[in-house]
């Protein structure tokens, strides 16, 4: 199949074409580029929901239940489920699908597991491109489930229209995590496993956080706090309702447009950066120059900075 056929396949929603393009994106296969150019004009329709929180909070189960609710509303869903790559072996166990068995045969749902491959921040380097493939294929809702995060992996807020932060009771003194980071990015707070001891306490703590933030910042949206027991499918209706209200708010006050503009700005710079660096790196590696550079730094005849300057000067001279 030529590259154009893959683009056509994506636009028609063919899972095989979508899956192959996603692999090309992850492998930085140049064949993905013409497909992305072709499908880009068909993106921008899907609504993107980010689900993030600490490991074990129930993100996968929540994603499964949320998707099922959207399916009942006759909306199609794309799911990206992320898991970490081992920094030692380069491999990964992608175990989020296991919680989504009910969806695995639904033709209106496309689930893709992705490993972070060393990218920090909770996502993979290629998450936004994979989102675009799902978007172009016609999915109404795209849910991005991040890896289990700590305090400051907040990249999800840049790719999602509504970011949901999942907390669970009993994780210790939560005041510590209120300082900055993940607790700041929530459009909706979810207290999952809310049948456990400490659920009311964590509810009050987050309520307090939301209240003092509203005093400090002028904002049009106060994140609601939704209690769920995802395994029992409890609280999911309220959660869908909260996401819906957020969406209505940001569409009305145009902050969604602002958000998407900011996203385009960042993505464009990023895409340019990645491609330029990829070309440069390929060139340096091809001629064995990187090893020579490392040698010269080790024997003190160069520093990383002097090498950088030489390369930059080379590039500028070449451009002229």
């Amino acid at each position, binding site marked *: 199949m030529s590259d154009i056929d893959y683009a056509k396949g994506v636009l028609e929603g063919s899972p*095989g074409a979508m899956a192959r393009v*996603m692999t090309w994106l992850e492998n930085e296969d140049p064949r993905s580029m013409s497909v992305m150019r072709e499908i880009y004009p068909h993106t921008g329709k899907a609504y993107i929901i980010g689900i993030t929180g600490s490991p074990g909070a129930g993100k996968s189960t929540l994603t499964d239940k949320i998707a099922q609710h959207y399916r009942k509303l006759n909306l199609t869903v794309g799911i990206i489920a992320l898991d970490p790559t081992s920094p030692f072996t380069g491999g990964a166990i992608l175990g989020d699908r296991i919680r989504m068995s009910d969806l*695995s045969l639904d033709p209106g749902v496309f689930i893709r597991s992705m490993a972070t491959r060393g990218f920090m921040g909770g996502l993979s380097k290629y998450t936004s491109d994979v989102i675009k493939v799902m978007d172009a294929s016609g999915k109404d809702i795209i849910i991005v489930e991040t890896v289990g995060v700590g305090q400051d992996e907040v990249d999800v807020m840049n790719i999602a229209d509504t970011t949901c932060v999942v907390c669970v009771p009993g994780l210790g003194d939560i005041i510590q995590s209120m300082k900055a980071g993940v607790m700041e990015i929530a459009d909706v707070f979810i207290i999952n496993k809310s049948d456990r001891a400490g659920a009311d306490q964590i509810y009050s703590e987050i309520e307090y956080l939301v209240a003092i933030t509203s005093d400090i910042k002028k904002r049009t949206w106060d994140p609601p706090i939704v209690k769920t027991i995802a395994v029992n499918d409890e609280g999911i209706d309220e959660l869908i309702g909260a996401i819906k209200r957020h969406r209505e708010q940001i569409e009305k006050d145009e902050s969604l447009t602002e958000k998407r503009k900011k996203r385009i700005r960042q993505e464009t710079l990023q895409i340019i950066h990645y491609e330029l660096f990829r070309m440069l790196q390929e060139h340096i590696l091809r001629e064995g120059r990187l090893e020579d550079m490392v040698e010269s730094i080790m024997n003190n005849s160069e520093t990383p900075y002097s090498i950088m300057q030489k390369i930059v000067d080379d590039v500028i001279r070449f451009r002229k």
Partner: protein
Amino acid sequence: MADKKIKVIMAKPGLDGHDRGAKLLARILSESGMEVVYTGLRQTPDMIVNAALQEDADVVGLSSLSGVHNYFFPEVVKKLKEKGLNHVLVVGGGIIPEEDVPGLKKAGMAEIFGPGTSTGKIVEYIKTNVKAK
């Protein structure tokens, strides 16, 4: 281009609940640098094949310790072919009697790794035989 990773679906078809082997192998394969989608228990052949399709899998690993391999393993191979996934390497393991192996291979299984197979051998086999796509 970035590093290509071998993508594996590790599945237990049918009602077999003995998942230690599958989990161990998922671990071992990921430690050799592969990305392993562990789909867990009670998978039907349709579910396994759909996962392989969406994940663009290079390998499907099937585990059976309850004697259902002669039904399920060829079913998975058949359904993979029906979806046009002819390049996928299908391997199996668990409690598989020696005398069943030729029939399974004839049905399209690439290799069967019975009890006692060294995990290093399994990794080597996959890395050597995975097909370009």
